[in-house]
């Protein structure tokens, strides 16, 4: 759980996962440009330390409720990029048979309870998962990812209060990327801190440098320990930044290219970690190069699979409305 225990392979796996998330997102952006994606997509480029760091300290049978910006969470939880791309391209072999798309993608076999198109939709779901864990007396936990903007939804507060009074094993992981669509937190977030809202509910509120994967691990790790030992929920606020528009095609009039470049140059989660790994002699240039090549191959294969996959048939729309039709 803590950094000391992280072996060389673990470190390299973390790095590779982050590369994979980024490569996936970059490819998704490309496919969008090529008009191959029927819906709109929200990319998490720049936020890889948060998704990968968080999911690296939880177990395969833990639950994750995600957001509209959820590709990274899902990959980090172990999803197959092939079926993810197939879903995003609207193919019948996608995770949701082409019915959900990017905003509703899910893999229940991985405990990934779905992206969500409604901002703030995941909070109560995670509370319910936490309640189920408690009633079933397992040692699982539930994570809900959410954006800074979602902290202004009523569901945030209702869910926090409920999780706190029942001491549920739920971790509220905020990815504070400073903007909710076009709206800056400096305008919309009273009190200026999401972690700070925890004190109203008598639970811990941690803030992490969300661009530092090891710090994210460390801090989410604390919340995980607390949750697993029955002490209840926490908020973790990962301070991060998204490089792309709110959605692909967003003209981004609300921020300057300089601001984006600043983050890319100074705080890029992958670059920062890469330097650290190389300085510690855990990673060599040639190993990094090979890893990037491997990741590119995984993505290429996944896209190939997705592009070749069949489209759903119109009559498939009639299926899945009820369990027993």
């Amino acid at each position, binding site marked *: 759980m803590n950094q000391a225990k992280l072996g060389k392979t673990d470190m390299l796996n973390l790095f590779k996962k982050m590369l994979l998330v980024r490569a996936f997102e970059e490819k998704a952006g490309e496919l969008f440009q090529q008009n191959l*994606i*029927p*819906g*709109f997509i929200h990319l998490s480029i720049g936020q890889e330390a948060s998704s990968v760091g968080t999911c690296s300290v939880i177990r395969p049978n833990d639950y994750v409720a995600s957001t509209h910006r959820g590709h990274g969470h899902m990959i980090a939880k172990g999803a197959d990029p092939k079926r993810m791309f197939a*879903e995003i391209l*609207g*193919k*019948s072999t996608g995770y*949701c048979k*082409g*019915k*959900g*798309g990017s*905003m*509703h993608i899910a893999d229940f076999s991985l405990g990934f309870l779905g992206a*969500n*198109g*409604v*901002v*703030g*939709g995941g909070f109560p779901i995670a509370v319910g998962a936490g309640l189920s864990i408690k009633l079933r007396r397992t040692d699982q936990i539930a994570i809900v990812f959410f954006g800074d*903007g*979602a902290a*202004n*939804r*009523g569901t945030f507060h209702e869910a926090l209060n409920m999780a706190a009074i029942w001491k549920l094993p739920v971790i509220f992981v905020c990815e504070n990327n400073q903007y*909710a*669509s*076009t*709206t800056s937190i400096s*305008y*919309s*977030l009273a009190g200026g801190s999401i972690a700070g809202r925890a004190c109203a509910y008598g639970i811990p509120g941690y803030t992490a440098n969300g661009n530092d994967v090891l710090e994210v691990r460390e801090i989410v790790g604390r919340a995980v320990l607390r949750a697993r030992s029955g002490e209840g929920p926490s908020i973790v606020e990962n301070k991060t930044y998204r490089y792309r528009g709110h959605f692909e095609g967003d003209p981004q*009039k*609300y921020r300057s290219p300089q601001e984006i470049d600043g983050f890319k140059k100074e705080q890029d989660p992958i670059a920062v970690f890469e330097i650290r790994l190389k300085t510690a002699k855990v990673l060599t240039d040639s190993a990094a190069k090979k890893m990037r090549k491997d990741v590119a191959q995984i993505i290429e294969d996944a896209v190939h699979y997705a592009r070749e996959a069949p*489209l*759903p*048939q*119109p*009559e*498939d*729309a*009639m299926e899945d*409305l009820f369990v027993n039709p």
Partner: protein
Amino acid sequence: MRVMSYREAVIEALREEMTRDGNVFLMGEDVGRMGGVFQATAGLWETFGPSRVFDTPISEVAIVGAALGAALVGLRPVAEIMFVDFTGVAMDQIANQVAKFHFMTGGQAIVPLVIRTQGGVGFGDAAQHSQSLEAWHTHIPGLKVVMPSTPSDAKGLLKTSIRDDNPIIFIEHKLLYQTEGPIPEGDYLVPIGKADIKKEGKDVTIITWSKMVLDSLEAASLLEEEGIHAEVVDLRTLNPLDLDTIIFSVKKTGRAVIVHEACKTGGFGAEIAALIVEKAFDYLDAPIQRIAGIDTPIPYAAPLYRAVIPNPDKIAQAVRGLL
């Protein structure tokens, strides 16, 4: 006459009413600086500033609720809910508060409030961003429901809605924003509760609203080539409903087809069908047909979402079946 897009017509209506009446103001997510996700409030923040155009946090309950509060004590808010799907988030405010205040207070409170939103299937926006939820809203007594299909109706009806002392949900359609049409000069209004016959015909009455008016007109022109003369009635407002125009047309043609994008079960088409049966049963030469969305959530992939909503061919096919 000027030609304008539906989106520009919405902006012009807001601009004119905000200029005319200093009590009119806008609030909603990204409506200010950004001009709205569909750019339907573009330029208004620049003109009227942040004390008339409020960007809000992602707090739909408080957007509608605060607009109600402001309306109760003297202002005329136009609150935007980005997608009609998210009126679900604010439904307590809409159904239990906004729509009932005037009545519950024995007429003391007035609620001059417009909730602007947009709905419908676009391009792969999937299950939580594509719905047509007007039937929810028509089921709430005390709430007017306005759904214009053309730029000129959008402008005239939005202006009327803002001047109305009652709460109104004004539902635009995401695929209509780019459509263009003529706009009358000057300060014109379109009355709420008045349907518009978009095309005259003697053989069958197609009753519809919002984007399905365009699909129905397309169907009607296909049918015209086959010698079938369909009349297309654009309801424009669902509540209050212009029953007279519907009944007059059905008595003339003897056949009624109701077209809506919303799923069929519990859709507003059922209400219209029942009213036609009540008022014009003896005039019907064929069963009433409803062409509506199939009862599923809206899927993501194109072959799937196309399969679950009406289109001109499906409408034309249904009409042929009646004759």
